């Protein structure tokens, strides 16, 4: 059974989290465990690399919604890099297409935070 693997690295104050697999109510807890402490940091700049994320449910999107308020209150943000059409559709179904920033160019997302 496919699950979720998470790779977390930090580069120039930006947290890059790469997801590989599926993000549903079963796997969301492991991402929560990473995002929650990051949201409590001083200036959370997070890039979610979702190139290899094949599926997301509302429980998965809930991981981001659950931390976005404290993150944005400190001028931080969560950007998404390389989202697939199928995964993006779930954001669209929740009318969240403008709520998060989606990038197809990793450097552009990186620059957005660096500036």
């Amino acid at each position, binding site marked *: *059974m496919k699950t979720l693997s998470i790779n977390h690295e930090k580069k120039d104050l930006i947290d890059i989290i790469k997801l590989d697999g599926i993000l*549903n*109510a079963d796997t969301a807890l492991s991402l929560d465990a990473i995002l929650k402490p990051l949201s409590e940091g001083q200036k959370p700049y997070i890039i979610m690399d979702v190139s290899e994320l094949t599926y997301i*449910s509302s*429980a998965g999107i809930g991981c981001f919604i659950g931390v976005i308020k404290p993150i944005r209150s400190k001028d931080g943000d969560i950007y998404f890099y390389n989202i697939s059409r199928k995964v993006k559709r779930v954001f669209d*179904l929740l009318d969240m297409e403008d709520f998060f920033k989606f990038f197809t160019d990793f450097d552009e997302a990186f620059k957005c935070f660096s500036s």
Partner: protein
Amino acid sequence: MLKKELEELMTFMKDEGEQLGLSQVNLDKIKVDKIETLKFTFPSHTSQLELIRLVSSRVISTLPAFDEDDLDDIGLAMDEACTNIIVHSYHENISGVIIVKFTLEPDKVTITIIDKGEKGQTFNPDELSIVDKEAYLSTLSRGGLGVHIIKKIMDEVEYTVVPGLHNCLTMVKYGKISVKK
């Protein structure tokens, strides 16, 4: 019912109809639709969700009127419905079961999901407000998203509670691709 049995039934109906003196015009108007029903019982645990989603998409893929996007959407709706049952209705009590019944017609699927969770007895999906982005921010609410997705994907959604017995979610989806009957 096997194909051979169905053909025998059709012949029987035609013969009996003729013996009863029914006109050929009226006999030709009789329509028979073969409807298949599949029933699954899953344990109420989040580890089952991905399997439920994959199996649901696979079941619907046997119907000619549904395309790839429909299969993904229905799989998602199933995940959302079963997540709500596991997390909210059974309150993560893993001894519960989720009964899923698919009624399959060429251009329509009716999915009935039954659970016996205590919390589901007092659940009313109509009370959940429409997803509001500002409300997310002010309340950090993560609930209600699943119901919103289900209502967007499926053509008909009904939730009924039989007090003391079970909770039942019925979802209907019509296929977009026209099917020659």
